[in-house]
């Protein structure tokens, strides 16, 4: 039987704060783009495809960013 290998986290611990900051920043940029598109376009010009994609990309980055934020502040979920 092979000797036991140690298991560590898939992302190195020391990177957690950096990743949290970067992902949240990118997520917020996309959120800003989403809301700009929503509020400045008139009703007929709203493109559903553009809205949903911007929202999806923003939520992916915000989701990962908030996960790494929780991990770096010590709440190991």
């Amino acid at each position, binding site marked *: 039987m092979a000797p036991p290998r140690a*298991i560590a986290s898939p*992302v190195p611990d020391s990177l957690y704060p950096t990743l949290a900051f970067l992902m949240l920043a990118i997520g917020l940029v996309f959120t800003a783009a989403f809301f700009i598109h*929503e509020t400045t376009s008139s009703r007929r010009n709203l493109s559903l495809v553009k809205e949903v994609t911007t929202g999806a990309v923003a939520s992916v980055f915000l989701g990962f960013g908030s996960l790494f934020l929780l*991990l770096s502040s010590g709440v190991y979920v």
Partner: protein
Amino acid sequence: MKMGFRFDLLVLAVALLSTPALSDLVLTRVDRRVDLTSHIVRITSTLKVENTGKDSVSEVLLVFPERQAKNLAYLTALSSTGKGKAKTAAVNLPVKNVNSEGMPPALVAYSVSLPEGGLGKGESFTFDVSVVFTHSLQPFPEKITQADTQLLVFEESAYFLSPYAVKVQSLTVKLPHPRVESYTKLENTKIQGSEIKYGPYENLAPFSYSPIVVHFESNQPFVVARELVREIEVSHWGNVQVTENYDLVHGGSQIKGEFSRLDYQARPHIRGAAAFRNLIAKLPPRAHSVYYRDAIGNISTSHLWGDARKTELEIEPRYPMFGGWRTAFTIGYGLPLQDFLFKSGGKRFLNISFGSPISEIIIDTLIVKVVLPEGSRDISVSTPFPVKQWEETKFSHLDVVGRPVVALEKSKVVPEHDQYFQVYYKFNSISMLREPIMLISGFFFLFVACIVYVHADLSISKSSASYLAKVQWEEVQSVIQQVNNLINRCLTVHDKLDASLRDLSRTGDVQACKTARKQADGLLKELSKELKPLLSILQTSPQAVQILPKVEELVVKEKELQDKLMVKHTTVVECYEKKVSGREIENRIASQQNKITALRQEVDDLLDFIDEL
């Protein structure tokens, strides 16, 4: 206490009369050391057993009086093959036999299995037995004042209680101080410093028993935890969090009378010798985020320092602990995951210590709860000693169905139980994505809610004047935005034209310039075609009355700009073909250029104006 003692003796004496010889083993040499330097009693015996019969024997029985066996916490036997320091730990199997044939009822027997083959005829074998007892030191007097020292009574038998005959034996009792109040004086008894030696005694029959009582002084800290709950939470993102909830009591002589803080602080060694002030816990190395708090809040009287092999935490409870006083607190710390979680075969396992990190602590009930991440299956536990086991569920951060918890319970735990145990389980690595996906879907739900809100038409009346006016205004707005878009695209085409001119001045490639101009021409024609229907919509709409002149002006100006740029472009290209010098070109187009820049400025202004609406 003494009455119960005498009663046991009586029962033993009666039982001894009806005991046949148990087997043909003879203990040729027994050396016992009783260590009383701590409140945990440790007895180490070295036994040399010889087989005087014909048959091979595979086990050796060890017996203890029932009263002593009640307090027995840990029993282990090691075989000491090899000379001197080369000891090998033997596989010992103390199996509890409940009253096997011929055993008197007041005794509890444990059997040690001898290594393969057993003991042949005439062979002898040496092994060490370590026994640990809890709560075996009786405080006497039971209540003392703050200024008194603690005196304790320990009872034992000078003769090794065994179902076999013993040829030669000796007993040494080691005390923490040279001061002994009293001790039973049998033959061959002498006291040397802080050790009392009984023996050697020779040729004793099986089940010989000679009670001795030692009354001595000990001010060692009597740390007893009535209950300890250790929760070990594993997170695959890189942390093992250990939280320990202690319910501590000072297990020595109870304090009577009043406690004078002034006396204690002025001369702690004279007024408060029996109390203890701090506890030392040895945590694993690389422990982080250590906290020490109780129901009131954080306790700041603690020190932490660590090196590569351990992290030492020294904690002081809020008050010194005197006999009978209780305190309850919580210690928590985080450990790096890679030191404790391993993968072997298809399973993962957690390898972590079972007991408390506090040194010299007796735990009456220890409950260890291992919380595994959600999605763990096929959980099994392997411990070096028997424990009671059951499963629970815990709801923690981002949990849907709850995390599986394995709870292990053991009573009478001593520091010898602080060994590693393993918890095996299966976990699919993809399940780790469940947490970020939950967060992502939460955020996405918010965005979808925004989209739905913007698209929803919540007006009540669809034919009122204000509603219709709003709809028309929105149409006008969208048309204007599209016009804006188109004008911006025209402007980018102009910029491209300018860029091609600059390229021309750099590279002198006239052909490329011409093709660029053709392209720009085509694009501009398309854009103006698209502009036409939009303008017509604006002209028909009543809401656009104010905007319309400005927009028309914008379109007209843009057209002028276009034309002028084209003219400039063609002149420059012709000049290049005719190889006219740079300054000539400049002169010819100077006036054009001025007009162009002025027009461009006006177009930009108009665009800004329209934007602001």
